[in-house]
Each structure stands twice: as structure tokens, then as C-alpha cells.
């Protein structure tokens, strides 16, 4: 079999493997609905078709994609570079709160600049957090898997403190932080839904990250180091340098996503802002096989599952967390080598 054929078939095998994982999870969704709902067919309708039945729901679904794209990109960069970032939750939260703080402290800038400053702030905060773990790994070989998670968990509490305490908005009944000025908010692009211009930013980010990883010098170093450390060293790459950078970029992207949530959607920070977005990033990065452009459709699929669950919850008797069960199934199966081996063996005979 000639080389291009082999390559095509390998790609097909990988795609089929992903399809199996995703398909199984959907089957489980159906099974769950039959098990838990008193009117399964109706629930199924709302679950799978629901997100498309109204413009409002549909565009809101797209909006919920936005932070997940940033998160997925961040994780994809980390995994591809051979490091682990489990700190998504804390990084998003910290990025969001940084945006709020900057918006509150510097509230008299022209709108456009204000928005940019807030976004930059979120990015830098995320990058700082990631770099810390990277530094610890580089200098003392402390597990990035553990430190990213632990630091993130600690940060969540600190941000919660800020929201509940010094930066709480006394005028609101609901517990939330003070708001950033209206002028700093991104424009909505599909009223009355919440979809905002941050979508373009997310797509742009995906393109930029793709460009970085595939076409730049730095991206090349990251990919080579992430794929085979011995090979990287053999070629003269100083692999010790590549712990801080990927974690900084990863944290930065995720922190940026947090800031986007403030500047595009919520205008203020509240305690459940992150709601699993950090973990969603991991799921999305895995479905996309760590490919930055693939993060876009993967994120869309992910929010489709969640959106369906939300619609089903509002219109029938199941609870929203069905989506989480389905997500776990995807997580279980998406790295199951046995599936991929199965297809590879069949197609490459």
C-alpha cells in the first residue's frame, strides 16, 4: 500500500475511533433518557432537536461555546507540548476576576481600550498561574499535573472570597461582584440571545494557535519536545526550557477565556462562573485530538450535548447533569487504544 493511502486510512481509523467514542456516549444518552424519563420520546426530541428549535436557544448554545474554545485551545497546547494542565477552573476564574478588578480600578478608559486591557489582564493572569507550575516543574521536577490542580483549587476559593467580600456588589440581591462599565462590554451579535463578538475572538484564537503550533519556530519546538523528548534533545533542543512556555501559553489562553466571559457575557463575576469549563476544555481537546482547529467543531459538539440537556431539563423531567454523564463516557472512550487499534488493523490490512 503506498504512503498516501496508508496516511488516509490511518486518518480514517482515527476518525472512526473518535466516532465510536462519541457515538457510544450518545447511545448511552438515549438509554439514560429511556431509563429516567417518564416520557422518553418527548425528552429525546427536546434533547437532540431542542437546541435548534429556536433562534434564542441556538445562538445561546453557540455563545456557550466561546469559553470552551479558549479552554480547549489552552489544553490542546499543553498536551501537545508534553505538559499537563488540570488547572482550567482556577485559571478561568482568576482571569475573569482580573478583568473585573481591572474594570473596576480603571473604569474611565475609552470603551475599546478598556475591553482590550481587561482581556489582556485575564490573559496575563492565566499565563502567570501557568508559568508558576511550569517553573516548579523545570527547577525541581514537581508534578505539573498536581500543582496546576492544587493552585487552581486554591485560587477558586480566593476569588470566591473576593466576590463574597470586598468586591461584592451591594446593590444586587444575587451574590455577584461589582460590574465593569457598560462601555467595556463586547457588542452582542444576535440579540436577544447572549451571543457576542467574543465568538470572533475565539475563532481568531483558534486560527492563531493553529498557526503558532504548525507554522512557527516556537510551535515546532513545542511539538517536537511534546512528541518525543529524546528526539528533541538529540536534535539539540534544550528541553528544559519547554515547561514554562507551554504552561504559560496554556494558562494564558484559558485566562483569556475567563476574561471574555466577563467582557462578553456576564459583566460581573459570580461564584459559579466556571461551572466545569476547565474540564470541558480537556474533553474538547481530547475529542479534537489536540488539534487547535479541531477544537472548534469539538467545542460545538460539546455544547450541543449540554444545550440539549438544558432544553430537555426545562421541558421535561430529566435533569441537566445527564450531559455530565455523557461527557464522562466520552472521556472514558476517547483514549481507548483498543478501539483505534481495531480500526487500524481492519483498514491497514
Amino acid at each position, binding site marked *: 500500500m503506498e504512503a498516501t493511502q496508508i496516511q488516509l486510512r490511518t486518518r480514517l481509523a482515527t476518525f472512526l475511533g473518535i466516532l465510536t467514542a462519541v457515538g457510544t456516549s450518545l447511545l448511552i444518552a438515549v438509554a439514560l433518557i429511556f431509563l429516567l424519563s417518564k416520557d422518553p420520546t418527548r425528552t429525546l426530541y427536546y434533547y437532540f432537536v431542542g437546541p435548534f428549535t429556536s433562534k434564542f436557544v441556538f445562538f445561546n448554545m453557540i455563545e456557550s461555546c466561546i469559553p470552551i474554545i479558549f479552554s480547549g485551545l489552552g489544553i490542546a497546547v499543553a498536551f501537545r507540548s508534553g505538559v499537563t494542565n488540570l488547572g482550567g477552573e482556577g485559571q478561568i476564574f482568576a482571569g475573569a476576576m482580573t478583568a473585573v478588578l481591572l474594570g473596576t480600578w480603571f473604569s474611565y478608559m475609552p470603551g475599546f481600550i478598556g475591553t482590550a486591557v481587561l482581556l489582556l489582564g485575564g490573559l496575563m493572569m492565566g499565563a502567570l498561574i501557568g508559568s508558576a507550575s511550569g517553573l516548579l516543574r523545570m527547577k525541581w521536577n514537581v508534578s505539573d499535573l498536581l500543582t496546576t490542580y492544587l493552585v487552581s*483549587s486554591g485560587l477558586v476559593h480566593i476569588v470566591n472570597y473576593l466576590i463574597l467580600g470586598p468586591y461584592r456588589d451591594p446593590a444586587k440581591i444575587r451574590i455577584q461582584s461589582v460590574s465593569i462599565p457598560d462601555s467595556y462590554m463586547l457588542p452582542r451579535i444576535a440579540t436577544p440571545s447572549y451571543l457576542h463578538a467574543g465568538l470572533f475572538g475565539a475563532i481568531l484564537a483558534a486560527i492563531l494557535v493553529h498557526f503558532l503550533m504548525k507554522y512557527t519556530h516556537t510551535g515546532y519546538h513545542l511539538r517536537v519536545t511534546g512528541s518525543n523528548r529524546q528526539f528533541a534533545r538529540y536534535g539539540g533542543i534544550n528541553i528544559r526550557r519547554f515547561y514554562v512556555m507551554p504552561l504559560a501559553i496554556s494558562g494564558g489562553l484559558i485566562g483569556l477565556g475567563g476574561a471574555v466571559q466577563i467582557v462578553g457575557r456576564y459583566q460581573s463575576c459570580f461564584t459559579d462562573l466556571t461551572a466545569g469549563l476547565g474540564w470541558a476544555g480537556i474533553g474538547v481537546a481530547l475529542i479534537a485530538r489536540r488539534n487547535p482547529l479541531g477544537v472548534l467543531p469539538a467545542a460545538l459538539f460539546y455544547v450541543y450535548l449540554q444545550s440539549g440537556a438544558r432544553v430537555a431539563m426545562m421541558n421535561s423531567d430529566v435533569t441537566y447533569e445527564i450531559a455530565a454523564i455523557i461527557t464522562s463516557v466520552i472521556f472514558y472512550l476517547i483514549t481507548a487504544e483498543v478501539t483505534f487499534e481495531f480500526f487500524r488493523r481492519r483498514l491497514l490490512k
Partner: protein
Amino acid sequence: MNELSFPAISSTIVIMTPFLLAAMGGAFSAISGVLNIALEGLMLNAAFFAIVFTNLTGSLVLGITGAILATLLLTALFGAVAFGLKANIFICGLATNFLAIAMSIVLAHTFYGRTGSIQFPGMPRLVPLNIPIVENIPILGDIFSGHNAIVYVSWVLLIIAAIVINRTPFGMRLRAVGVNEKAAKAIGINAKRIQFTALLISGFTCALGGVVLTLTLGAFVPNVTSGRGWIALVIVYLGRKKPIGILIGSIVFGFVEYMSNNLQTTSDIPSGLLLSLPFFATVVALVVYSVVEQTMAKRGLLKTK
């Protein structure tokens, strides 16, 4: 209770119990060469089912048994996918954590029509047991008396764990697999079976850890585990996978948690900051440990194993 009682001691002991249990189980896995990051989810799973089954059966014993079985099932799923389908063990661990959270919410909704805290007035709870005579001894009384049954069980389990790891053939093979998996296979040890068994053991101990959280409270609260499973992982690492080290680590982190709780009620330091304390303390501990280990290794002071 006498005048010389130190609530700090008895509280720390109770608080450290879930850490101890989770870390104990995590140690079995770690010794066999597998990092089990699902300790958190397994504890949560048991915490939830403990309430479900205890309420259902009206019996603490049956409730605890049910929680253990449910968690062993989840662990078996985790192991089957990771070892049988050759999936990435970390991702599977994450999946297990999510599944546990999701199941608790979905089932709470299905069984009880509500999400959020689940509480049943009149449901049996774990109560502190006071040992006569001992309870009146200063200090020792605080250490050894007045805890619920599972706390005492955890001590027994720690001793059993130490014995199993160091003095049984299973423990030997467990350690051999962790030291050199390839060589272990070459001499006829079924490494995968050992690792799977270790995983199940960690599921069992985590189950007890989760049970003690909700059955003392008498309620299931979302995120009742709040990161203990992850800190338990660090305890395993810092304790160098040895029972003594794990005990010390659990005491230390139990105390940190106690201080955090205490300060929340007695001081003006905001709770958010106090809640973050255990996590940052853990990171600091990790860093200090790594720095010390590497400096000592460089100076040739460290035994390699």
C-alpha cells in the same frame, strides 16, 4: 469531657480520617505503579450512596455496605476501561470523577426530585463512641476516645495495610510490579491483575472515606469532598507511599484543615481565604519536599529507594 481536653486533637483526628483512608488506598495503587487520580470521585460516590442506602434501609451497616459496593462497581468500571480497553489512566480518572458528580446529581433528582443538599431527618448517623475509663485520661482520652466507628476502623485498616504491603505475598508482588513492571512480568507475575486489584482496594478505602464525611454530617452536600481526594494523592507522594508517612501526612493536613475550619468560626479571616489554605499548603509542601529530596540526592545522602 474533662477540663484538660483538647478539642484540637480530637477534631484533627476526625478530620484527618477521610484523608487517611483515601491516601491509604491511593498508596496501594501508587505502589503498583499506577497514579489513581480518581480518589476524589470515588469518595464522593460513596458519600452520596451512603446517604441513599442508609435512608433506604434504615440501617447504618447496610447503608455503608451499599456505598462500598456502589463505589467498588465504579472502580471496576474505571479499571476495566483503563486496563482492558487500554485507555489513558489519567483521563479515565478524570472521567470517574465527573461520573461520580454527575451520578450523584442525576440520581438525587431521580430518587428525591431535588438537587443540592440531601438530608433525611431521623436517619441513623455515625455517632462518637466514648470508651469508658480511656475517655477521662487527659490527652490520651482525646486521641483514643470519642470518635465514630469508622475512625477506629481506619486505624485498623492502616495497620492491616502495612501488614499486607510488607508481609504478604500479594504485597510483595505489588511492590515488585511497581519497582520494575517488565521484570515482574518476565518472572510470571500478572501485573495487570495486581494493578487492578490495587485499584479496587483504593476504591474500598475511598468508599469508607466518603462514608465518614456524610454519615457524620447526616446529609449529602454537593462537593462534600472538596478536594480531599487530590490532597490525599499528595499525601501519598510526600509520605513516600509508606504507611507511616501517610499517617503523618494525614495528621498534618488534617490539622491544617482543622485550623482552617476553626479560624473560620473564631477569627475574622474570611472563609474563602481559609478554604484555600490547605491547597496552597499542599503546593508548598510538594515544593519543599522536592527541593530537599534533590539537594540530598545531589549530596549523595539519599538512599535511592
